[in-house]
């Protein structure tokens, strides 16, 4: 299941949905991205996530399908928010469920690395001094490349 949404999500609710829908889950990995309190130098006021509607959903579906084909997964959830978010707010949720831990753990890692460089989202940080678009990190590209096998 993928969703690109403005609203917040509840990890408990999403976990329950997966557990009701599927049997024999033995391992669940999940990742939550959160707006930090601090930007590079100064305190963060807000972070606005811009996205490409349509393409965001398309890319999230693509990455979910890739994860499902590479690992033995029972189910998965990818939720990515957009709009103006504040320190402590949840940005992204990835859940992967499998019988054995290796599949859940690795695929969750894969999805989050992939989102960083292939998810059509752009972050605008407002601090108490200024506002700027967050630049993509070279290290993120490297993280994503390690899954190319």
């Amino acid at each position: 299941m993928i969703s690109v949404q403005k609203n917040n999500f509840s990890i408990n609710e999403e976990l329950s949905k997966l557990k009701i829908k599927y049997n024999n889950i033995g391992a669940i990995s999940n990742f939550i991205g959160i707006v930090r309190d601090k930007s590079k130098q100064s305190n963060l006021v807000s972070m606005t996530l811009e996205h490409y509607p349509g393409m965001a959903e398309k890319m999230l579906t693509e990455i979910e399908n890739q994860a499902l084909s590479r690992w033995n997964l029972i189910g998965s959830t990818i939720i990515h928010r957009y709009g103006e978010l504040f320190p402590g707010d949840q940005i992204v949720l990835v859940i992967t469920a499998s019988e054995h831990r290796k599949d859940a753990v690795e695929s969750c890692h894969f999805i989050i690395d992939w989102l960083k460089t292939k998810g059509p989202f752009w972050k605008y940080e407002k601090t108490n001094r200024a506002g700027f678009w967050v630049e993509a990190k070279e290290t993120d590209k490297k993280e994503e490349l390690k899954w190319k096998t």
Partner: protein
Amino acid sequence: MKILYFSWIKDKLGKSEENIILQEQIKTVEQLVIFLQNKNDIYKDIFKDNKIIKVSINMEVSNFKDSISDQDEIAFFPPMTGG
């Protein structure tokens, strides 16, 4: 042809999208960029270093050498920063 702009490209242009009628001689993204740059200095400035700008054709990440047609939806954006 619909062209979308994101992030600082949108800010510099002061618009998030525009519709243009694609002239027949423009066959690739590269040629479209030159056409845009000839419009004014803002475009010229934005596209002065292509390497930091990505393009998608119909929501598919693409190359500047790729072919385009008038029915395509093109988007220009800096490297993505999702997650």
